[in-house]
């Protein structure tokens, strides 16, 4: 038994045509059934409203509407058909301050460029297997930004149902390699 992406629809927004071609090729080899492409954020939002994809993969740096603005529209615009859609933001920026600012518009996963096929797959796998609840509060709407889990407890258990999480406590906030 393995994943089948045959029935999935993915929207890619990337203003760099050769890169768009590469990402599309990788998704096709993953077996994605429908791939919709756009060269800018405004058109991508229009296509998003029309096609309501299962996943959005967007580049950060596009003009006139960049990937962060596109994500903001998807999360907050009343026309958005699915405010909860997972969004992967691709970026060459790895500086923490910039990444945290982008995270705060409601990005689900970051993908640092350059990337390999496994990097992209890992982000998709994380979205499929480790979905995060959404949080709506003053000034933020998006997937829960907290990824840290309680530290491993080594003491005695009080209840039979108690168990220690196997998750790595050092899991980073955004899955991106800060420099």
């Amino acid at each position: 038994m393995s994943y089948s992406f045959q029935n999935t629809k993915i929207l890619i927004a990337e203003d760099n045509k050769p890169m768009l071609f590469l990402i599309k090729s990788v998704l096709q080899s993953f077996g994605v059934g429908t791939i919709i492409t756009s060269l800018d954020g405004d058109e991508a939002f229009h296509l998003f409203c029309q096609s309501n994809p299962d996943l959005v993969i967007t580049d950060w740096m596009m003009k006139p509407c960049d990937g962060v603005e596109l994500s903001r529209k998807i999360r907050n615009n009343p026309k958005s058909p699915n405010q909860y859609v997972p969004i992967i933001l691709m970026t060459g920026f790895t500086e923490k301050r910039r990444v945290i600012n982008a995270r705060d518009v409601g990005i689900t996963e970051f993908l640092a460029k350059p990337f390999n096929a496994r990097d992209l797959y890992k982000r998709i796998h994380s979205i499929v297997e480790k979905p995060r609840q959404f949080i709506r509060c003053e000034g933020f709407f998006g997937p829960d930004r907290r990824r840290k889990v309680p530290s491993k407890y080594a003491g005695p258990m009080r209840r039979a149902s108690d168990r220690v999480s196997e998750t790595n406590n050092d899991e980073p906030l955004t899955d991106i390699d800060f420099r």
Partner: protein
Amino acid sequence: MDNEHYNQKPRRKAEFINTPNLLKAKVGSGGLNEQIIQRAQQLLEKHAEDFAPLADIYLTRMKAAIDDAQSSEVTDAELEDKITDILVPCVQLKANGAMFHYQLVTRIAGKFAQFMEVVDCLDNEILNIANAFHTTIKIVVAGKIKGDGGEQGEALIEELDNACNRYFKKHNKN
């Protein structure tokens, strides 16, 4: 008596929403077969898309931004924008280089991006360093030096890195 705690405003309320995992429902379980991932990786490693036209766009933007900063004194109000104008095309070179088999471009541009993220002015020394990075990347692309550039690539990186460190040392920014 500390009444700060007593008078504190209620914490902002947050609504927690658990959404159905639609993607999981469509794709099923078990992950992707390793062979599929490797096939996708081979696509990335063997494609023949030309990087030069793309690199030329970013190099031109980077050079224009450096020249613009060099043409007149950069005010405090302009500083952040001027740094970003130089940084963004450089980050694009870093992001795209290795995707098109130019790993050395990614490394050089990555070094320069790190440098530009920490500078707090645009003086002549910084702009000279920026020009050195720009020229080096241009030469790598023009010379079609794919991969990591071997020992020469390593020497180039070291030289550029030394220039940045000399700047930091001179201005006590270590």
